[in-house]
């Protein structure tokens, strides 16, 4: 042993750790005081088929540990030579600061923002993030919205159910498309079909005999008919895609499944000296954790007065037409959450990328057992949403359209319906997280919801208060 290492053995160890394979320093080999934050290992190839409750719980625990991990430079945090873009993109020059609040990396842990009322929850205004469609101008140093859209942090409770709903709705819509095309080809004439799933209308499409589609009547979903339920805008397909994007953008931790050598030619795309920063198995653990976060609930208040007001509030909610978009529940056929999922595309692990996907059976979890079911045995997911995009701002009421950039082909004043479950625990409100009260948020509805917002404003104070009383019963829960 050299004199140096004999004098400072810890330093020598740390040096070795920094340049060795990440896996060699994780879990078992790392001392308790290690400054590595990634301390778990998950072998993706061992995740297949339906996981037992024990295996699923273990995976969820690892996912929670990663979700709460404050990634360090020893793990590969930071991306000196890569931008926040969702497509691997190299900086024109190394970044000046390891962290910065605009282009990122802007957070140490997922839970740095997703933490209210607890891990997996929403974030206050301090946790706002910036989404940018730009790929080369990553070092913007201004808040000018021409460069980015500022967004509040959503909570993730019930997210597994949301993704499952989206997958089933996607399958419904795409099956309708296939049938329409078959008919148009068979009959030799246009075939117009209404698109709907779980009671939510997405307008119509017209299949043409030549095999193409006229999407002029399409509403609230992209032309590929993929329901993208995540983010304020509704442009993320899956928890997995969201996780892969966020790990790079917010932490500079680059998942192999997009930034690895398969797609970039290098296993250290961000040039920080750390290869293979986040394996597919680790992403799976994070997905399992998020997918298994309990569904928010409607909680009966202790106060009799509040209970009474809430009853009236829910009536008001319906009377105003809020349920047209904020559907109280959507029926879900299956609680089997396959990961990787069926809809993702290259760069997010796909079903075809593995020999067999893992199935996280949410029905094994206690909170899921308590979910209401309909006569057909379908779970009624109480999300108060429709997983559809709507124009929610216009010249009459532009508050929700406080952006100037379209995002991923979705116009600036169009957003997915916010699910209201958990609302009481996730203030502030609005896409930018800059509305401090529910009253402000309701009044801010424009576009398709303008009349509802206007009707709310015209209510008697007592009814407005009752509506707030009811909304305040939508809790993340303990």
């Amino acid at each position, binding site marked *: 042993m050299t004199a140096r290492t004999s004098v400072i053995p810890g330093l020598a160890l740390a040096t070795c750790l920094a340049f060795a394979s990440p896996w060699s320093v994780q879990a078992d080999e790392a001392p308790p005081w290690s400054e590595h934050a990634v301390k778990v290992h998950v072998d993706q190839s061992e995740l297949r088929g339906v996981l037992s409750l024990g295996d699923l719980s273990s995976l969820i625990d690892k996912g929670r540990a990663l979700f709460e991990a404050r990634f360090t430079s020893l793990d590969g945090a930071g991306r000196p030579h890569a931008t926040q873009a969702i497509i691997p993109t190299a900086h024109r020059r190394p970044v000046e600061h390891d962290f910065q609040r605009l282009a990122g990396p802007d957070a140490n842990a997922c839970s740095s923002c997703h933490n209210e009322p607890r891990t997996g929850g929403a974030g206050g205004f301090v946790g706002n993030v910036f989404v940018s469609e730009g790929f080369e101008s990553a070092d913007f140093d201004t808040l000018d919205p021409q460069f980015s859209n500022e967004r509040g942090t959503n909570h993730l409770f019930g997210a597994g159910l949301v993704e499952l709903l989206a997958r089933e709705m996607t399958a419904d819509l795409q099956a309708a498309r296939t049938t329409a095309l*078959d008919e148009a080809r068979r009959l030799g004439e246009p075939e117009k079909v209404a698109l709907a799933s779980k009671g939510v209308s997405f307008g119509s499409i017209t299949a043409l005999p030549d095999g193409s*589609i006229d999407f002029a009547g399409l509403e609230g979903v992209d032309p*590929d008919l993929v329901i993208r339920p995540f983010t304020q805008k509704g442009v993320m397909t899956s928890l997995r895609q969201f996780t892969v994007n966020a790990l790079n953008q917010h932490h500079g931790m680059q998942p192999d499944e997009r930034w690895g*050598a398969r797609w970039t*030619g290098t296993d250290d795309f961000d040039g920080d000296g750390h290869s293979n920063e986040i394996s597919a198995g680790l992403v799976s653990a994070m997905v399992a954790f998020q997918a298994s976060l309990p569904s928010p609930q409607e909680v009966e208040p202790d106060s009799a007065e509040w209970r009474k007001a809430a009853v009236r509030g829910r009536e008001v909610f319906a009377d105003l037409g809020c349920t047209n978009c904020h559907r109280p529940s959507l029926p879900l056929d299956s609680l089997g959450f396959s990961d990787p999922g069926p809809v993702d595309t*290259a760069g997010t692990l796909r079903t075809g990328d593995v020999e067999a996907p893992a199935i996280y059976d949410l029905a094994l979890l206690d909170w899921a057992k308590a979910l209401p079911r309909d006569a057909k045995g379908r779970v009624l997911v109480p999300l108060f949403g429709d997983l559809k995009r709507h124009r929610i701002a216009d010249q009459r009421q532009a508050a929700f359209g406080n952006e100037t950039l379209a995002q991923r082909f979705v116009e600036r004043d169009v957003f997915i319906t916010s699910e209201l479950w958990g609302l009481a625990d996730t203030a502030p409100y609005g896409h930018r997280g800059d509305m401090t009260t529910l009253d402000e948020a309701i009044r801010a509805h424009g576009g398709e919801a303008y009349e509802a917002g206007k009707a709310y404003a015209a209510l008697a104070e007592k009814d407005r208060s009752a509506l707030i009383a009811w909304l305040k019963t939508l809790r993340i829960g303990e």
Partner: protein
Amino acid sequence: MSACAKTVSCLIAVALACSVGALQAGPAFAETPSEPAPFSADTPVFEEVAADAGIAHSYDGPWEFFVGGGGAAFDCNGDRYPEVFLSGGKNPAQLYRNQSSAGRLTFEPIPIGIEPADLEKVTGAYPIDIDQDGNMDLVLLRVGKNIVLKGDGACGFEEANRHFAIDGGRDWTTAFAAIFEPGAQFPTLAFGNYVDRTAPGSPWGTCADNVLMRPQPGRDVPDYSVSEKLKPGFCALSMLFTDWNHTGEPALRITNDRQYYRGGEEQLWRVEPERAPRPYRRADGWKHLSIWGMGIAEGDLDGDGWPEYALTSMGDTKLQVLDREFEDTPAYRDEAWDRRATAHRPYTKDEGKPSTGWHAEFADFNNDTALDLFIAKGNVEAMPDFASFDPDNLLMGGFDGRFTERGKEAGLALPTKGRGALVADFDLDGSLDLLVVNRGGSASLFHNRGAKSAFGTRPMGNFLEISLNDPTGNRDGIGAQIVVRVGKKTLTRTIRVGGGHASGTSGFTHLGLGVAERAQIRIQWADGEWSHPYRVFANSFVLIDRGSADARYWYPQRRNAAEK
């Protein structure tokens, strides 16, 4: 190369001695490029399924059919699945209807409806809608009279030489290209001819002239009654109209076989509107290059809008990059060695002998955004100084601009004598398949099954397939450039008729998108006008009609209920 008989193989060997020696002794090249990182992107797995898919066809025949051996992939019945037409040399050419479904390639031979004798002596074929009626026509290159077949939209054809006033000539035709000149209602056609066997002293130094046919203006139907000779001809084996200088005025590039010309070279012809074609000369900056030119591939490897070219030959392949230091001159430097694309000897079972390259085509076989290079390989016939086992190349493009040979891993290392090839997505699953016409043996149909994985195969990157329609003329957008933006990467493709080796494809233009979920498309139509951007989702087939506000999504027809 070369249609050389066994009796002249020794002469060829002598002629090649120096260059072959150089090839074998690697250091004779420029400084060896640094060792690249191991190829880490997907290698497609090609499964040879010709027999199972219903294709049993062989290109064969005497000396005249040592070269040629091409075919055409095109949709002749409107379902957008590409049919296949294969030349046979002494054997009859054959048309196959595409009955494929996702995951399974299926073809059935169908009659083409013309005189059987006209289907013999065919060396190659190119699809093009000559009369702009919306139905694909077919140009048959032959030893003897070339024949143009007019399609009826239901895979029926009739000979149209007289209808179009085309003189099929009596030459030994081995190359073809077409372009729409400014304002023209119909395409300009170029035919490349090989050795004039009737000339005194043939075959040495007796290359036939090439022919340019321009449609006569003011006619309702194509009228090619007036043609022009492109003199001198240097035994063309491939030709391509190409916008080499990004001016919107394509020139005609011809690769020629040095085996038979005297004083010849590679050629680039100016084809300016209403002017006689003129070759670029040294004074214009054109650098003399003499190779056994057999195939041309055009591709924009770096996304800058200027095309690069792969030229196949005996021995090393050339990879030509415009030398921008010489402004506005067609000066090219060869980067094949630096980019590891020489492919000069077999990559497996190498006995130290140079290989023989024919069809070349750039395409993205693994959908990772980088262009790959396919080269059909095969001994001319039985030339002892060249590799007898000479497998086709699959040079996979890397993100550093260099190539890595993956033919063996991909399943292409077969003991065949490749000639022409068709690169097309035959089952419309988003991955490019490959059909290789082999001399003296069955054609190979390689079904792209995806990327190799520990458990079999897995899907590759995202893709986009685009079809253009210009209702104002030039329906299929020949000469138009498709520019696709993903992230900050620009991918370009140009709609061409020509190149390769006696083989052409039409239909969807395929691009790999890597991990991009969305893309933005702009079209620069052949007349130079740019479209507005079209936003599309990945893994789609899109139809772009000139002037339309949106791209239309198109979906392959289900041929069984299990397909989605």
